[in-house]
């Protein structure tokens, strides 16, 4: 499931992926951390800059392509997956990343996001989730919690929020993961995994908007509580979490339950499997929400299914190889008559 890429040039460094544009996010914005890790990971992976395209829509996160010294398109609101699909359909050798946010990807662009994942277009989608509209200055988003007070919800939001990973799994995504802006190592590893996936890789990145929603992810960043609020899922390992690794997740029927590992319950714990064909387990994990459950971080699902864009190009190649492309014959392919 790796990209077919040329020999990685040994010399690439993070700096090679830094463009000459001044970065204009608010001081302290989580986007800086994501940008830095992306540049670092790309240098490590060694995909040539010219073979890499970043496509975005509109929003704070969507300024991302300007800061990457690769090919890039800053498109229109919600439509990045559509451009990415066109790019891959023409040149499947390119590595295409879509950078989007909770408003861009799940509100105005929801339709394109789900269809891109359903088709399994070979693009990596990074959804920066900060549960608020930042660029338009603080309205609630499709991932804002009910009751969230913003300028457009002075009495609290009455919208029920989307869970991005549940949406992705429901939309048949073949790779679904969650990570966080400031969780440097985990973010790097998750980006590496996404890059290695052939097909749509959907990554939800908890991202902190320091201006309009600065406390949204405190429960996953505050060192005094975060370990009790996150369960890191790893292939083949039991779902254990907690500051002292003293809690675990057991599956009772179709429902997850928290059990106390210290009480000797570890045999019953669920063991993580990313590549189950049936997506019910991954979906169940995605439904574990704060504060009732720890939030799953890591790769929830990674299965192999032919990518739409590869199949499209294969069909065309088969047809071209049939060697029947005679344009003059095509024009004549109807009842014809001759005028002398």
């Amino acid at each position, binding site marked *: 499931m790796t990209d077919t890429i040329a020999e990685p040039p040994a010399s690439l460094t993070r700096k090679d992926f830094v463009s000459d544009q001044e970065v204009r996010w608010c001081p302290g914005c989580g986007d800086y951390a994501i940008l830095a890790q992306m540049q670092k990971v790309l240098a490590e992976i060694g995909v040539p*800059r010219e073979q890499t395209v970043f496509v975005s829509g509109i929003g704070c996160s969507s300024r991302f392509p300007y800061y990457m010294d690769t090919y890039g398109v800053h498109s229109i609101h919600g439509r990045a997956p*559509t451009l990415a699909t066109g790019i891959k359909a023409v040149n499947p050798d390119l590595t295409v990343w879509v950078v989007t946010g909770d408003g861009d990807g799940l509100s105005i662009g929801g339709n394109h996001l789900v269809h891109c994942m359903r088709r399994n277009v070979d693009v990596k989608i990074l959804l920066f989730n900060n549960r608020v509209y930042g660029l338009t200055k603080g309205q609630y988003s499709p991932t804002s919690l009910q009751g969230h007070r913003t300028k457009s919800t002075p009495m609290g939001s009455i919208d029920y929020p989307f869970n991005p990973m549940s949406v992705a799994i429901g939309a048949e995504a073949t790779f679904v993961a969650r990570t966080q802006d400031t969780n440097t190592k985990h973010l790097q590893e998750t980006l590496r995994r996404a890059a290695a996936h052939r097909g749509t890789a959907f990554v939800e990145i908890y991202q902190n908007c320091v201006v309009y929603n600065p406390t949204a992810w405190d429960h996953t960043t505050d060192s005094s509580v975060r370990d009790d609020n996150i369960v890191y899922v790893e292939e083949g390992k039991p779902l254990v979490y907690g500051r002292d690794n003293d809690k675990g997740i057991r599956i009772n029927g179709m429902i997850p339950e928290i059990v106390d590992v210290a009480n000797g319950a570890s045999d019953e714990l669920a063991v993580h499997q990313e590549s189950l064909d049936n997506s019910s387990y991954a979906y169940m994990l995605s439904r574990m929400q704060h504060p009732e459950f720890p939030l799953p971080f890591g790769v929830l699902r990674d299965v192999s299914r032919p990518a739409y864009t590869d199949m499209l190009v294969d069909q065309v190649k088969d047809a071209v190889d049939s060697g029947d492309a005679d344009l003059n014959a095509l024009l004549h392919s109807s009842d014809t008559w001759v005028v002398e």
Partner: protein
Amino acid sequence: MAEPPASESSAVNAEMARLMDSVVVRFSGDSGDGMQLTGDQFTNTSAVLGNDISTFPDFPAEIRAPAGTLAGLSGFQVNLAASDIYTAGDAPLVLVAMNPAALAANLADLEPGGVVIVNEDAFTRNNLRKAGYDANPLDDESYLQGYELHRVPLTTMTRAALDDLDELSNQQKDLCKNAFALGLAFWLFDRPMDTTLAFYQEKFGKRPQVVEANTRALKAGYAFGETTEGFQSRMSIPSRTDVVPPGTYRRITGNEAVVLGLVTAAQKANKTLFYGSYPITPASPILEGLAALKRFDVRTFQAEDEIAAIGSVIGASFAGALSVTASSGPGVSLKSEGMNLAIVMELPLVVVNVQRGGPSTGLPTKTEQADLLSVLYGRNGESPIPVIAAATAAECFEMAIEACRIAVRHMTPVFLLTDGYLANSSEPWLLPDLDLIEPIDIEHRTDPVGYQPYMRDEATLARPWVVPGTPGLEHRVGGLGKQDVTGNVSYDPQDNEHMIKTRAEKVARVADFLPPLDVFGPDQGDLLVIGWGGTYGAIRAAVEQAQAEGRSVASCHLRHLNPLPKDLGKILSRYRQVLVPELNMGQLSMLLQARYPVRVIGLNKVQGQPFRIREIVAKINEILT
């Protein structure tokens, strides 16, 4: 049924065949009756015989509206001629009506003295009621007075002819009654059956009983004409004797011509053709046509919506393919934001707008020309875009190539306007010599030295088309305001105005590449009739008629709507009056009056139907009398 006998009676009938210069025939029936196929076959045979032909199918938006009703009617009109014709004709001389609704809906259009052939079996009490008849009109002499009526028990006779085909149900046998009607029409117009017999073999070859059934029904219909004595005379339209350019011809619809034009353009540009679109009437046949041509490296993408379609095309263009989408009014509206992104990113792509009756969902299967101003001005901000329009079904071929040529030469999205009439109507097409079509030259810059994303060609102001994968030319483009040359995001007031003026000038310079306009008729005089798009045929025929009556009238047809050709102003000034017939409320009229010191007279119609020749003739006479 036996072969049509080459008997004495046949010879007698042939002698009696009335030679005619042209005839208009209309087939009408339920949308499940196979009227389009019947009309197609009748037309193909006539075209192969050497007639000029022009067809106009007219069908409902519903796939199968309730059988027997007016809403469910599907019609196909064809004009056959021994000389040049430009439209499918104003009024049919022969009507084939498969049920009472078809008679009720079409009788008023028929020429006085016209021939009416009805399927008598379908005139049941139930069908009569659905068509709004209180009593059977076939029994009412006054109702059909002045017409030559033929009551043919089509269903009964078709069933009789297929009696022993045990594998077929009665329902399947009844489907063959259109073949019987077609056979009768072949006899009436003295046409051979071989083209259609070969078609049945090709289409139904895997089901021998179906081939046999259609073949028998066709021959039975022919034999019925041969043996019945009801017809006053057969009609025969000889092969064209006027001067027609020599060469190989085929029949083609506008949508088919767009498909072939796009593939030809891609081959001439040595490019992958990427086509992203969402199904919509009447543009879907372009998607279907191209999907079957993957062997020419055509990559089709049926998107989740119209917005995704234009988005995919912008992405494909960025990646270096010749990229095209098509839609119709409602879908084109949805593409507006994407079009503007392509305008600002200065990427080449083509949007084909197969116009239909609007506004909103409007009349999906009917024709109109009311999107001109919306494609020119229907986007936010100053948003200049080249717009061209095909005049005839066959011309859609070369206009598709022209659209691609403009797009890549000037690095801009281009609108190609066609319409529901052009898309579905057909006419003869002289197959082009592919070697004579100029290559489409495309240069993708690969040299990083001195490269800037928005550096410009001196003559065209086009920016370089650099394709991802090219080392050293990595760059970012987007929809934000930008600085010229560098393409860097800029909110500087001067940069913004400079870019707006530069994009406008770039599009204006397309006019440097346009050929001089053709004027048909005197180069100055009393009246210039000016049109655009699918009204060409009706305007041309009307002007010919007015000229023959001694009027000082000329016509000029615009293929390029933005920018307008440079010589248009001078041409307009040479006539005392200007008439603009349009299937809208006066959109080209408004443009011309805004751009030139001219007052124009509009002839406007928004009924979902093309102009009749006589409507334009009447207007010319009114102006010049």
